[in-house]
Every structure is written in structure tokens, then in C-alpha cells.
């Protein structure tokens, strides 16, 4: 056995070295092929209901090109499941929940199909989404994702808590950092809520999308974290935003400890940074209002940009019947289906002129109107190499300096800026 095991291991190790790195599919043949396809949908109940109805409608008219739909398999995050499926070669044709931050990684894996390969695809995408579509182009100039829907984040506040703290529950003054801090201090000192606001203080790379990034987008009039290969956060605007959050943490207005539930729904926090998906979730549980994120100077609401929290549709390279998949992409993002998505989920289709396209919906649902207006002013995560590593680098510096105060904010942002510049350059 002593001789047997090494003899067994060697070929296995060599086989491992040669694993799956050769070959090449016939992409043009697949691009023209039609037939049955599989799609994955988000496990959000409202989105799932929309997805199933969409699939039923398609299947009833396309008996020879049926869609089989299923929820994204459970995992720590959807992105890890999708990454593993790409490597295993069993990713579906389409995933209606592809995170833009994960697209550079999936693209590097060879897991995505460039949509520009299909006739009229670029025009379709830019016509539907307008100028915002540019943010979803990859560095090679191609679209590996179809911009689908956004959840532009705003400040949700609890009207009852605000009233209890002696703040105006209908038109609260929250537009500048000073106003926001004054309100936060009142909430805390009055005991109206244990926390003024409770963003997750944990280290996951994506948490900055719901604290620093929306305010950074607003403060800079729409700059991304990285632009032209350079980190943008190590700037006077970035430092202002970080210092604002640091004050909230230093004064105990935002807790440094993780909360296991939904702090806003559980009335542990008076405010939260969330998108319109939350309206149906909070429902009658919380009497809420929403205002744009604050800026240092109190910019007018109609000029404030924010983080999009978008999810897109992408076609995966394991797909054999890509012509059908492309037609399904167009069908699922048609004006009719976008309207269905809006009415079933309250999430904003990434479509130009949203309010004028669906006037009836917004008349009947005025709560969503301000999110539709905000949807036209969103900033996406940068589509750059090492996207997740960049966000993790930023998050580590942010938690170290802003949340736990172990390093001066400017030093932390400067150090992270240098690292991010290297990562954005592809090294």
C-alpha cells in the first residue's frame, strides 16, 4: 500500500494539472441554435412569481423552445453558486439575478456570452436603458450583461420613531450631514430607538454598497468607486463621506455590532438605507417615509445620485441554444414584462423614461414614484478587473478606520487607494 498510494497520486495530480483548460466550443453554432433552455431565478418570492408567469407565457407560445426555470441553488451567496456552476460547466442559459460586481469575474472565467454577438443587441440594450447602459459595458466595450432592474437606495425612516423623538415625521430635515447628525442625536438621546441607523458593520465586500457608496455617489455627482483605472474614494468627497459615518459610529448613533434581524423592521433603528423592494416587505409593519441620501451641502433632491443595487440578466457560455436564450432575454425585458415585474415586485426596470412608460402604475402607487425618479440617477459598481477584491480592500480599510477607529480615515483611504489602483490595473 505504501507503494500503491504514491503511484495512484501522481497521475491524479498530473491529471489535475491538465484539467479543463483546453478545447473551445463552437460559439457561432451555439449562437444560432434554438431549442430548450434553462433559466435561474432569484428566490425572492415576488420575483419568483413574476419569473414563473413570464416562463409560462413564453412556453405557451414556443412549444419547441421551452424554458425550464428554477431558483438559484442555495449557497452562501448567489455569486459563489454561479461561479461554481461556470467552472463545472452546468450553468444555465440565463440567470435573472446576475450581480454587476460579479460580472468581471465571470467574464474572466470564460463563463459569459458577449451579447453584442447577436444582431441588434447593442441597440436593443441602449434603446431600452438609455445612457445608463454605458455603466454596464465591460472594459472590452462589450455587454456581457443586460441591464435589467434596479433598487435605487434611499433613506427609509420610521415616522413613529421620528415623531417620538420630536422630529417632523412628514418632512424631516435630513438633507445635509449636519441635519442628519442632529436628527440622529435626537433619536438616540430621546430613547425613541436604540440606534439612529444600523448599516451592517461587518466585513463582507458588498456591505459598502449600503453605507459609504450611496453617499459617495451623491457627494461626487455620480462618480464610481473606480474610474479610468484609478480609485476615486481617496478624495476630499470620499473623506467627507467617511468622516460623516465615522461620527455616527464614534457617537454610538450607528452600532458597531452585527444585528441578526432587520433592524429597521424590528424598530431597533430609526433609519435604513434600502431600495423600493423593501416597501412590500415593511408593508404595514412600519409607518415609513423615504428621502434621498444626505450630502454635505444639502443638494436638491432631484440632483442626488445614489447606488443602483441593480441585478441584471446574463447569458452563460454553457448555453447550447443561445438564439433562443437571446429571444427570451428580449421577451423578459419587453415593455410588457417590465411592467409585470414592476407591478409584482416594485423593483425598477432599468428602462429609460420609466414614469412615462408606466403612468398608470405610478398613479396608483405613489409611494414608488420617488424611487422611479431616483432610478434615473443611479451609479453602478465599476465594471473593472478584480472587482470583488477591490471592494474587499475598500471594506477592510473602511471597517478599520471608520467603524473601529484603529487608523486615521485619510491614511486608510490613501492606503486602500494605492492597492485598488494596482488591482484595477489587473495586477
Amino acid at each position, binding site marked *: 500500500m505504501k507503494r500503491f498510494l504514491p503511484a495512484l497520486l501522481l497521475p491524479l495530480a498530473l491529471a489535475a494539472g491538465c484539467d479543463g483548460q483546453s478545447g473551445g466550443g463552437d460559439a457561432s453554432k451555439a449562437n444560432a441554435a434554438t431549442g430548450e433552455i434553462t433559466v435561474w431565478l432569484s428566490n425572492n418570492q415576488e420575483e419568483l412569481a413574476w419569473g414563473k408567469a413570464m416562463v409560462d407565457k413564453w412556453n405557451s407560445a414556443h412549444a419547441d423552445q421551452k424554458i425550464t426555470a428554477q431558483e438559484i441553488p442555495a449557497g452562501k451567496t448567489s455569486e459563489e453558486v454561479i461561479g461554481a456552476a461556470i467552472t463545472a460547466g452546468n450553468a444555465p442559459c440565463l440567470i435573472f439575478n446576475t450581480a454587476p460586481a460579479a460580472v468581471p469575474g465571470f467574464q474572466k472565467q470564460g463563463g459569459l456570452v458577449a451579447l453584442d454577438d447577436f444582431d441588434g443587441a447593442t441597440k436593443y440594450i441602449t434603446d431600452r436603458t438609455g445612457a445608463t447602459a454605458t455603466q454596464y459595458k465591460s472594459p472590452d466595450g462589450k455587454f456581457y450583461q443586460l441591464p435589467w432592474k434596479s433598487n435605487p437606495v434611499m433613506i427609509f425612516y420610521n415616522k413613529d420613531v421620528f415623531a417620538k423623538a420630536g422630529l417632523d415625521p412628514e418632512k424631516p430635515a435630513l438633507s445635509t450631514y449636519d441635519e442628519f447628525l442632529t436628527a440622529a442625536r435626537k433619536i438616540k438621546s430621546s430613547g425613541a430607538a436604540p440606534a439612529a441607523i444600523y448599516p451592517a458593520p461587518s466585513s463582507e465586500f458588498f456591505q459598502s454598497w449600503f453605507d459609504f457608496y450611496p453617499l459617495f455617489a451623491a457627494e461626487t455627482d455620480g462618480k464610481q468607486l473606480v474610474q479610468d483605472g484609478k480609485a476615486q474614494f481617496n478624495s476630499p468627497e470620499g473623506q467627507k463621506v467617511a468622516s460623516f459615518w465615522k461620527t455616527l459610529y464614534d457617537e454610538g448613533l450607528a452600532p*458597531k455590532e452585527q444585528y441578526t434581524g432587520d433592524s429597521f423592521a424590528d424598530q431597533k433603528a430609526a433609519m435604513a438605507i434600502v431600495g423600493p423592494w423593501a416597501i412590500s416587505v415593511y408593508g404595514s409593519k412600519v409607518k415609513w417615509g423615504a428621502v434621498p441620501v444626505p450630502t454635505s451641502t444639502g443638494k436638491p433632491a432631484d440632483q442626488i445620485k445614489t447606488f443602483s443595487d441593480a441585478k441584471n440578466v446574463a447569458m452563460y457560455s454553457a448555453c447550447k441554444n443561445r438564439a433562443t436564450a437571446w429571444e427570451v432575454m428580449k421577451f423578459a425585458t419587453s415593455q410588457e414584462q417590465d411592467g409585470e415585474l414592476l407591478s409584482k415586485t416594485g423593483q425598477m426596470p432599468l428602462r429609460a423614461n420609466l414614469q412615462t412608460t408606466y403612468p398608470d402604475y405610478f398613479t396608483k402607487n405613489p409611494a414608488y414614484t420617488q424611487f422611479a425618479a431616483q432610478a434615473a440617477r443611479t451609479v453602478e459598481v465599476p465594471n473593472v478587473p478584480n472587482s470583488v477584491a477591490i471592494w*474587499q480592500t475598500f471594506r477592510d480599510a473602511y471597517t478599520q478606520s471608520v467603524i473601529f477607529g484603529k487608523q486615521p480615515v485619510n491614511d486608510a483611504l490613501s492606503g486602500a487607494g494605492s492597492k485598488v489602483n494596482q488591482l484595477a490595473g489587473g495586477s
Partner: protein
Amino acid sequence: MTTARADGVAGGKVRGSRGRVTTVLGRHPVGLILAAPYAVYLAVIFAYPFGFAVWMSFHDYFFAAPGAVVDTPFAGLDNYRAVVSDPAVRKSFWNILVFLVINVPLTTALALVLANALNRAVRARMFLRIAFYVPYVTASVAVVGVWMFLFNSGGLVNKVLGPLAPDPSWLVNETLAMPLIAIFVTWKQLGFFILLYLAALQNVPKELYEAASVDGASAWQRFWSVTVPAVRPATALVVILALITGGNLFTEPYLLTGGGGPNGASASPVLVMYQRGLQQGEPDFAAALGVLLVIGVLILSYLSRRFIERD
């Protein structure tokens, strides 16, 4: 004579071929068949991934779709250099050292003392055994949830401690987070190690205790001079398994302290492997880190075995 010679030649040939078969397959070839399923399992589940990880650690590698033409050039020791020079990795190894310094002695001492007590207990023995074993078989995620409620700033522990409660609280305190995880893991794993010791205690001859009693040994002297040496092989096993558990630490820093927080104070090497290998798409870096971790655990296990089992 001729016949005898012919038989002798034929018998020699038979013995020769049998000898070769015996050399290759052993005296009982059926044993190989019986062992084969586990050998195959070991090869597929452990040896192949480990061999692959070692290969990855020496190459510029990332996970690609089947059929994707991707270059994976030999990278020499680049990945190892990147791992060793990464401050987050160095911090994670320091964190795990803190964990092991607390967890391994605590686990070993508590498991031995409790097993010894349980071995003598007459009343409620079964209840106590089950009580100690329950945390071990309960899903980490569920137990972590309970500990989060116990140890958060408004939790039961701080309420009991009142003004003595630490500030910042346990889970966001850079000094206390890792020791708390070490205590959590000790508590959770204790039932399994108690069982190991209980099994070992069954084999300690009663005559040794009787002889010690006749010689006038106190209860403590009987424990120290009879029980502890008698269960030394079990102690070596407990220490090695506790070291391996520590080396594999992931769930607790991932869930209990929100991804290795506060500020990386409870990040473990496996958590860093997960972040870099799976989240950030650098499996080559993660593989190099994993290989170093395996080497570290092997060295510690070897040293502890040599130290504990020496006469």
C-alpha cells in the same frame, strides 16, 4: 529423476509466479478488494483535491469554464511569497495561534476531568453524557445564533455582568473576540472529546487504582499518577484533533463575528482562503495558503505527539 526434475521445475515456476503475485498483492489479495472502496474514496475526496491544490499553488491559476482557453503558467513560489507577505494572512495565523493556545489546553483538560467524573458518576450518568454531547451534534449555525444573543452588547451575559461587562462588547472587542470563539469551540466540541476519554478510561486496569490506594495515594495522586499516564494515547489523539479543528476554523468567525471581525481580529486562515479563493477568484493564492496551513498543522501535530507520547 527426470520426473522429479520436471516436477521441481514446474513447482519452482508455480512458486515463482505466486511469489510475484504475493509481492504485488500481498498474502491476502482479497484484503485489497475490501480496502479498495475506502482507498478510492480517499483518493477521490482527499488525495486528488490535495494534489490539485498543490499544483494550483505553483501556477497562476483561476477557475475557468470548461472549454475556455486559459493560460495557467508556472508561477514558482510567487503565490507563496504573496501569502507570506500579506498582512491579512499573517494576522489570521496570529489569530489562530491565540485560538490554539486557549482551545487546545482547555479542551484537553476539561475533557479529561469531565470524562473522569462521568466515568465515576453513578446517578444521571447517561443524562450528563448526552448533555455534553448535544452541542457537538447541533448545527453550528443554530448554536452560533444562540451565542450571538448571549454575548451581544444587550445580551444575557452583559446583563448579568452589569457594570463589569466589557466595553466594547465581546463580539466587537478586538481582544476578546478570538478568546470567545476559542471558548465557544471548546464547549461545542467537548462532548466528542469526552467520549474519546471515556473509551480510554474503560481500559485502565482497576488494579492500578487499587495498588495506588494501598500505597496511600490520594484521589488527586491517583488521577495524576494513574489516570493521566494511562490515557496518554487518547490525550495525543485529542490534542491532534483539537489542533486540526483549530486549523479548520471557519464557521465561527464567519457567523459569530461577522466575517472575521472586528477589524480582522478573528479572521482565520480558512476564512481568508474562502475570501480570496472563492469570493475574489484567486484560488492559486488560496491553495498556497492552504498548503502552508496543512504543513503547519502537520508540524504541530507531530510535535505534540512526540511531546505527549514520550516516556
